[in-house]
């Protein structure tokens, strides 16, 4: 051993750990949470979204059919304890109907985003991983979908498959909205494919599926999660627009869009009827947007968090 010691580079003799590191173990998600919490607007947005979702689930459950029960006696009654926003021109409890509408809109928003993420990740990862002509073909499909005016395509799909059906609206939004997610995932995959840790996994003998599922998709998901969160806002707005035009959810079913349509008729007599769904819609969109911004920062593993 003495003999080899002589031939060592001076200074290199320290054998083991080069630094003593006493920071507590923190997983990736703990770090994400720490970074997210620093983003105050995002935290507010998170709680706002939580309140909206809870209300949209709980209130229609608790109030039963109040959202569609008409009554001649209650027409245009003012606010009370059981009806905080009063009654509309058909004698329907406005608050109950608003929450039911919010439920429909949020459901469509989240479900459409799931469709978008599923199609987008599948197409984008296939294109980015295999490259070459596969990539070329898939990206031309993306270009074609992008070149079609989205809203009119949705209108056409809904008109074709039948208006008023929640699932038709979800599929229509999903089929037209996946292009951004696909492009993001493809771009991530193109750079990840050359990343050293992906190459290392291949050198270890990991198969395509393991490399894609274990190494590439988790690393490519950050921008997709952000895009998806922002996509919730988009989908809710598209649904509202469809319903407003009469192609989406039609009465007696409730949605934020058809509540706006109806409020139009009483705009001068009772403008508040338009404000309620309008403000709710704005809150949903703002919450989703700020949540997306916060996640964008939090999901970037290169951002350091101070320890204290």
């Amino acid at each position, binding site marked *: 051993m003495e003999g080899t010691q002589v031939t060592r*580079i001076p200074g290199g003799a320290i054998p083991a750990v080069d630094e003593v590191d006493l920071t507590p173990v923190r997983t990736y998600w703990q770090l994400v949470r720490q970074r997210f919490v620093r983003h105050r607007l995002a935290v507010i947005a998170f709680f706002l979204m939580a309140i909206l979702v809870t209300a949209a689930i709980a209130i229609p459950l608790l109030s039963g059919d109040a959202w569609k029960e008409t009554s001649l006696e209650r027409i245009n009654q003012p606010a009370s304890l059981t009806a905080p926003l009063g009654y509309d021109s058909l004698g329907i409890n406005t608050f109950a109907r608003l929450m039911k509408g919010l439920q429909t809109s949020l459901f469509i928003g989240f479900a459409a985003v799931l469709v978008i993420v599923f199609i987008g990740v599948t197409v984008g990862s296939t294109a980015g991983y295999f490259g070459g002509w596969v990539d070329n073909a898939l990206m031309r499909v993306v270009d074609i979908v992008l070149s079609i005016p989205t809203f009119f395509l949705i209108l056409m799909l809904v008109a074709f498959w039948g208006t008023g059906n929640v699932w038709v609206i979800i599929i229509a939004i999903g089929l037209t909205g996946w292009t951004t997610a696909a492009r993001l995932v493809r771009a991530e995959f193109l750079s990840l494919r050359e990343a050293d*840790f992906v190459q290392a996994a291949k050198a270890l*003998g990991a198969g395509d599926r393991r490399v894609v599922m274990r190494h590439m998709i988790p690393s490519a998901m950050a921008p997709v999660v952000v895009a998806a969160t922002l996509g919730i806002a988009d989908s809710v707005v598209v649904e509202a627009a469809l319903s407003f035009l009469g192609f989406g959810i039609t009465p007696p079913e409730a949605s934020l869009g058809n509540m706006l349509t109806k409020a139009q008729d009483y705009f001068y007599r009772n403008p508040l009827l338009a404000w309620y769904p309008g403000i709710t819609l704005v809150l949903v969109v703002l919450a989703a947007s700020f949540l997306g911004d916060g996640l964008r920062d939090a999901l970037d593993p290169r951002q350091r968090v101070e320890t204290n």
Partner: protein
Amino acid sequence: METTNPGAQPAAAPAAGETLLRVENLVKHFEIRGGLLGISTIGAVRAVDGVSFSVRKGETLGLVGESGCGKTTLGKVILRLIPATSGKVTVKNRVLFDIPTEEERKAGRRATVLDAGEMKKARRDLQVVFQDPYASLNPRMSVGEIVGEGPLVHGLTDKGKREDLVRELLARVGLNQSHIHRYPHEFSGGQRQRIGIARALALNPDFVVCDEPVSALDVSIQSQVLNLLDDLQQELGLTYLFIAHNLAVVEHISDRVGVMYLGMMVELAEVDDIYVRPAHPYTVALLSAVPDPNPRNRRRRVILKGDIPSPANPPSGCRFHTRCWLRERLGNPEQCTTVVPEFREIQPGHAVACHFAEEVTPDTIGAAARTGGPVAS
């Protein structure tokens, strides 16, 4: 230059070891696509252009050259991380691939490439340590998962056994075993590189491609990692292909050194031989660029003119002729621009690709070298 060579491992000294890796006429051209649809090929970057060498069991072959000379590409092609254009690579008598050139294909020779299952087995013997320890570890996996991935992929599904193995490997590379559940971002560069080395060792390979394993580290950490690689080689009988651009590092760790220029091997010899008696004009210039720690020494440098030519359009004949100081001294012989020099042995174990290698003498070098203090450029 110091005459003692700190890198010579006693274990690797016998020259007649069996060949572990054999590379024959390896070519990697990256096609440049263009045209209306981006489908037609309008040229090729000749990153690796006909490289042959072999590595003996237990030795370290250093590979040096400027940025862009193809040394990293060469490593990746050997590992089959990128497909070769043509050539043959054999590891432990197992042919990883044997791809014919365009002419050979026309003559009817078929390519043989190890299928996925066999290649997976071959990868147990063939591992890699990457340059950048920040990019080579998946930030979303714990140290245990990273180091244990190889064994898992190769069928060690028992979680407890895998963890024992990982702990053993961590200890072996000088890391605290309790770090097994930590994530890469919690480690320093040197520690991360140790994790990368542990991952490579997890499959108990015979041959490790070290792709500039210390270039991204602090100088103070470099020596630790080099000594670790050195120790592991002696303990485990590893064979290294050590790719680097730091000539001092290569001198320290290598038994033999290959010099690459524009995708071709220009000189290959024992480390003592090449550092003392370089026979290729490019090696001479490269070695004269090694910084001397003593500022009082008058440095004699051979300064090359111009930039490295584009590998998409390499010079004819000898690729180095556009910048060669020797060619100038010899009155620009025509041979240099027209004939590709053969990679020939000028003495046993010392191969060089230069028509006039015999003219590289202390006299001609001295005449070409500028003497002086700090040299610009």
